[in-house]
Each structure stands twice: as structure tokens, then as C-alpha cells.
């Protein structure tokens, strides 16, 4: 059965989504019971795939429908995609367990519809990463987007508007990507990524290729929320139900950056991306702007979720900038940061959900005394915070180190300065929260101090949270292994 693993990681969640949709009508609690083993199987299969790719040191190619590419659709699982597959399935598994209670509270009588959309969303993301076909990627992007829009809109108040904005902007982004694929198809006649990559270098003189490149990239930038095109992101993540924003914030933007890496390195090939079309310098400057503006806007927020959303925008800038530095160090940093940032974002968003488990804490001032009430969540929050700031031995430090080294090697000092500036801002942001939550006295209106009782979140939320926080340190300690055995193989050899 192991040769069918690339199909299994997609088919198992797809089937389980359909089962949840049917059996959820009959019994609400069964949704989680179906979803959990399905995600478990996906996680295990991804690990096996990852292991196989590393040990055999060659990509696994799977022909869907038995048709070999370019006639049919093929899955192409190499070092890069298997790493991101493990990341997505792991993040989802932790998130699924952690938010079990929150989902029941937030979607009382629509739990089955929610879980169906949830699993389809993850299926879409897994498919985007596994696929080796440029059009198939778009179809799966549609699945991930539509389910994402629906989940974001399912909250009262401003969620509708945020969801509507996201639908319009996100659809434009996806359409631009599709248009770019159409341009490529016009000049190559193929949709398979490997096939396109073998044809495109012969078309360096065509004006269609740069046009297709720019259109694809702009579409992806919209979907990942890179700075001037980030309009949808802060509101969508702030006003979405907390069980949704905690899943989408770690995964959506990171998967889109994966797609950008994939398209730049494996569709347009490094020759076209870095030597012929050469958007690198411009894109890195956009990333610099994203990092600085994201950080500054995060500084001016009073709502914690919105502040974190702007940090996500700054982090998108890190990865895009690292990729377009065009050297091995920078791209290593970008790919490493995809992994690290997904885990960090998951950790910090889940910690915020945990803080809100008894009383709603949205504003920064609501955090007074939170650390005394929830010591474990506070510890996890601090680990995630220092990882985002970039303090060793947490993983955030190492990817930032690679990014800064890449910036220095490329001589792009503005990018280096922006990274350092953003780290400083993050430090201010998180120490402000820590100060409010730990040091500020909290009292009732008469100036009398409350007797503080420890009121931790439920163990169902705490245990995954602690595991994720440990992962931050483990990832940091094993950075070297990750880079030498996985990421260095994921970058084409012609990039130095």
C-alpha cells in the first residue's frame, strides 16, 4: 500500500469529510470521532512519505488515474513538499484536538457542517502542496479558499464584512494565478510543472513568460497577504471564530508562500526566476516594506488578535524577502521559516484562545492578571513570544539567522535592517503584554485586590498547547539536521 500513500493523504480526509457531513446529521459528537482518526492517518502517512523521500533521496511521483504526465495529473512529492505535508498535517492534528471544546461552543448546531468544511480545507491545502500540476493546484486552491471563506464568515458582527472582503480579494488573487497558468499554457501547451519547467527555458525571448510570471506572483501575493495587498487579512483573522483563525493563520499564508517557492523554483526554474526575469530586487523591497509596515501597524493595535495578524503580515515579508534574495542562505531561511512560523503562529494563537477560555480577552488591557490565573498558558505564551522575537534556542532565532545571513550575502542591507527592526518591535509588543499580564496590579472598582484563583484551560487544550510549545524548542535544536537533510535538497543545485 505504501506506493499509494500520495493518494491516501488526500483521499482519506476527503472521504471522512463526506462521512462527517452524513453522520453529523444523525449525531453531533460523531464528527470529532471521525475527524480525529482521519487526521491521524494523514499525519502518519505524511511522516512515512517524508521518511521515504529522505532515505531514498528522490521524489515520489504518483500518476493519478494511471496516466503518466503530461497527459494526466501527477503528484510530485519531493523534499520540499513532504516537509510541508508533515507540517500541515501535524498542525491540523494538534489544532483539531486543542479546539474540540471551542468548536462545540462556537458552532452549537452546525458542528457537522463546520467539521466537513474544516477537513475539506485541510484536504485542499494538502493537495496544493502535493500536486505536480499547475492547474490541479488552482482547483485545490479553490477548495481551500471556499471552505476558508465560509468558516471565517461564521461569526457575528464584523465577520460578515471581513468574510466578504476576503471573498472578493481572494477570488481576484486566485483568478490572477489561473490567468498566469493560462498564459503559460498558451506558450507551452502543458500544465505539468516538470514539463513546463523543461520547456520554459527555451522561451526566454517570449514576452509572454515574464507576463505570466508577474501575474502568477501577484495572484499569490494577494493570497498570502503581502503588504500592499494584505487588505483582507487583519479583519479576516480578527473577527473569524477563534477555532478558525487559529487554523488559518498558521496554514493559509504559509502554504501560499510554499506555492510561491514551488512556482519560482520548479515551474519557472531558477534560471528564469533569478537571471532572466530578475524581479528579485523589487520583490525584496516590497518585502522590506511589508516587514516594516506590518510591525508598525502591529504596534498601534489594541486588539490582541489584530496585533498578531499584523505580525503575520510582517512574517510573510520575512519569507518572501528571503526567497527573492536568490541565494541559498536566503531561500533556506525562507523555507525554514515556513515551518517555524506555522508552529509559532499556531502556538501563540492557541495560547490566546486558551486565555479567553473563561472570560473574553480581546483587548490588551483585558490581560491584567491573566498570568496568575493561567500559569501554564502564560509559560507557553512566553515561549511562543520569544520564538517570534527570535531568541535562541527557540526555532524563530535560527530561521531569522539564515535570513539575515542571506541578506548579508546578497548585500541587501535594507532587508537585514528591516528584520532587526521587526525583531525589536516584536520585543516591544510582547513585553508590553507580558508587563500588563504579569506586573500590572488588577483590582476591582474599590481598589481591593481580588483573591486570585488558578483557572487553567481544559487539559484537552493545554496538552496540545504544551506539545506545540515544546516543538518550538525541538525545531530550534534540530535546525541543523533539518537544513542539511531536507532543505538543502529542496533547493535546486544551480542556486548558490
Amino acid at each position, binding site marked *: 500500500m505504501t506506493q499509494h500513500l500520495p493518494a491516501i493523504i488526500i483521499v482519506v480526509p476527503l472521504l471522512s469529510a463526506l462521512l462527517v*457531513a452524513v453522520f453529523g446529521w444523525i449525531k453531533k459528537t460523531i464528527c470529532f470521532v471521525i475527524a480525529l482518526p482521519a487526521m491521524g492517518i494523514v499525519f502518519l502517512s505524511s511522516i512515512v512519505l517524508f521518511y521515504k523521500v529522505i532515505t531514498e533521496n528522490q521524489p515520489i511521483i504518483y500518476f493519478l488515474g494511471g496516466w503518466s504526465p503530461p497527459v494526466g495529473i501527477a503528484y510530485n512529492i519531493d523534499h520540499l513538499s513532504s516537509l510541508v505535508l508533515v507540517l500541515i498535517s501535524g498542525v491540523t492534528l494538534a489544532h483539531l484536538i486543542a479546539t474540540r471544546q471551542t468548536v462545540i461552543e462556537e458552532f452549537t448546531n452546525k458542528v457537522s457542517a463546520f467539521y466537513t468544511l474544516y477537513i475539506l480545507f485541510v484536504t485542499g491545502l494538502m493537495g496544493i502542496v502535493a500536486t505536480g500540476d499547475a492547474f490541479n493546484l488552482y482547483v485545490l486552491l479553490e477548495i481551500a479558499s471556499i471552505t476558508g471563506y465560509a468558516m471565517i464568515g461564521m461569526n457575528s458582527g464584523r465577520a460578515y464584512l471581513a468574510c466578504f472582503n476576503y471573498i472578493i480579494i481572494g477570488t481576484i488573487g486566485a483568478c490572477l494565478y489561473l490567468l498566469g497558468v493560462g498564459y503559460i499554457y498558451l506558450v507551452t*501547451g502543458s500544465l505539468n510543472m516538470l514539463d513546463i519547467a523543461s520547456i520554459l527555458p527555451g522561451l526566454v525571448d517570449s514576452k509572454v513568460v515574464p507576463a505570466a510570471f508577474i501575474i502568477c506572483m501577484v495572484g499569490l501575493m494577494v493570497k498570502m497577504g503581502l503588504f500592499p495587498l494584505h487588505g483582507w487579512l487583519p479583519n479576516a483573522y480578527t473577527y473569524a471564530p477563534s477555532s478558525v483563525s487559529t487554523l488559518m493563520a498558521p496554514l493559509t499564508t504559509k502554504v501560499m508562500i510554499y506555492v510561491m517557492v514551488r512556482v519560482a523554483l520548479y515551474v519557472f526554474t531558477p534560471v528564469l526566476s533569478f537571471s532572466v526575469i530578475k524581479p528579485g530586487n523589487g520583490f525584496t523591497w516590497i518585502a522590506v516594506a511589508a516587514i516594516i509596515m506590518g510591525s508598525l501597524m502591529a504596534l498601534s493595535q489594541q486588539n490582541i488578535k489584530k496585533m498578531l495578524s499584523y505580525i503575520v503580515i510582517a512574517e510573510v515579508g520575512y519569507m518572501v524577502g528571503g526567497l527573492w534574495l536568490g541565494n541559498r542562505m536566503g531561500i533556506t531561511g525562507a523555507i525554514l521559516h515556513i515551518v517555524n512560523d506555522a508552529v509559532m503562529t499556531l502556538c501563540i494563537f492557541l495560547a490566546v484562545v486558551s486565555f479567553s477560555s473563561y472570560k473574553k480577552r480581546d483587548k490588551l488591557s483585558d490581560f491584567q492578571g491573566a498570568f496568575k490565573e493561567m500559569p501554564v498558558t502564560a509559560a507557553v505564551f512566553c515561549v511562543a513570544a520569544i520564538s517570534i522575537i527570535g531568541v535562541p534556542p527557540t526555532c524563530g532565532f535560527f530561521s531569522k539567522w539564515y535570513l539575515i545571513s542571506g541578506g548579508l550575502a546578497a548585500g541587501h542591507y535594507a532587508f537585514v535592517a528591516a528584520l532587526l527592526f521587526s525583531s525589536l518591535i516584536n520585543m516591544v509588543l510582547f513585553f508590553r503584554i507580558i508587563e500588563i499580564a504579569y506586573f500590572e496590579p488588577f483590582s476591582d472598582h474599590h481598589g481591593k485586590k481580588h483573591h486570585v484563583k488558578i483557572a487553567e484551560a481544559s487539559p484537552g487544550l493545554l496538552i496540545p498547547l504544551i506539545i506545540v510549545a515544546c516543538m518550538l524548542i525541538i525545531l530550534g535544536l534540530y535546525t541543523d539536521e533539518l537544513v542539511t537533510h531536507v532543505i538543502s535538497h529542496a533547493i535546486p543545485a544551480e542556486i548558490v
Partner: protein
Amino acid sequence: MKKLGLIIVLICGSLMLYGTIDFPDWADPSSPASTHLSPYFIETAMHDTAVPNIVTAVLADYRGYDTMFETTVIFAAGLACFFLLRRFQRRAPDVNLFRHMPTGITLRIKKGGKVPVDSSEFERIDSIWVPYDLIIKTTCRLLIPFILLFALYVIAHGHHSPGGGFQGGVILGAGIILYAISHNLRAAKARIKERFDAYMCSAGVFIYVGTGVLCLLMGANFLDYSALAPLLGTDPIMARSHGILIVEIGVGIAVMAVMICLYYNLSSAGRQDEGL
């Protein structure tokens, strides 16, 4: 701000036009799109899949995996509509309206009042001004069976002529929606219940995915219909043709059910008590 937007749009538009300079000419037989893969499909589709309609062969077999996810997109869209719009809090109306069919008198029955039992003489209506619509109802009653029949023809005939699961499913759904419009939402829901419709949504996609899994269990790759030959009692090439029909039927069911789900939720703002 508007002017700035216009300038940006103009610049982007002209850049995109500039990018199209090197496009191959319209209908150029030597363009890459018509020389790279298309000849393979034109020459071998019939030989590979025993399906005369090349579009169907590409759509449901060569690139059947895309089509599976397109069906899933439709499923997700229907589900999203249900998820966002459906409101379960049922507020019983203060006044129920019943029309006595033979005399045309409308009864207003307040909460707690006696509701007429004999349903053949009384008809529940949503507002006082619902007109008599004998002509509309009769015409639709005559039309709907033929619409549904034509839909089945479109699904089944996708192998030979334009058609297939998506188109046929939309026509099927349109037939049911016509029934709902010509009568009312309650009448349509009495025929096709919400829960049954939800099951159909899942079942349609399930047929598609299940066919693929069956191929997997028979030892071939996912969605490789030729592995179904022993089950269908045909040769592998004919099995591909039958496999395409099976998944087209799945697509048809899913599309029809999603159309109905969309109409039920959109026409009643998710309350599903009274329609348009």
C-alpha cells in the same frame, strides 16, 4: 483615490496587453497548445477510453482528478451556503393563512386557533395576496417530467455529445427549483426534504471518490477505471468508459442536490419556512 485606482488599473492593463504581443495567433494550428498535447488526445482518446467525445474523455478520465475536486468545490459551496445562512431557531408565525380552495376564502388563524385538517380543500399560503396560479401550476406540472427526463439524457449522453454530469445535474436541479417556484417552498420540501438533500450532496461526491477508492482497492492507481474491468465484466478499455459514466452520475447527483440546497437556503434567507 479613485483617480489613483484608475491610473494603476490603466498601467496594469497596458502591461498585460504588452505581455500578449507574443501570443500565438488565433486558431493557429502550429501553436504550442495545439501541438504539444492535443494531438495525443485527438488520436488516442477513442482508443484509450472508448469514449467518442474527447472533451468527456479528458475531463473525466485523463484529468478526472481535477473533475473530482471540481465536484467537491460545488459540494463545498453548497455546504458553505448552508453553514452561513441556515437558521435553526424556528419562530412559529403569529398568524397562519389558509385558503379554502372551492370558495377562495382566506382564513386567518391566530396562534392557538384550530387549524383546518382536511388538506385537500385547504391550502396553506404565506401571504394574503397569493394569487390563484392554476395556469402556472399546470404548465409546470406538464413541463417538469420532461425537464427531468432531458436531464437524465444529458447525463447519460455525455459520452457522445455535449453534456455530462455538471450540465445534467444543473437541469435536474432546475426542474426541482421550478417546482418550488411554481408551488411553494413547503411543497418542494415535502418532496425533497432538507436532510435527504444533504445526503444526496454527500452521496454524489461519495460515488466519485468511492469509484477512485475502488480502483485503489483493486490494485491500480487512484481513479484508474481500467481496474474495474473484472467487476464490470468488460475489457479494461470499456471499463474506462463505464467508469466515466459512473462518476458522471455521481457528479449529476451532487450538482442537483447542491442546486436545491442553494435554492432552499437563499430563497428563504436560511429559515426554510416560506420561499420566494
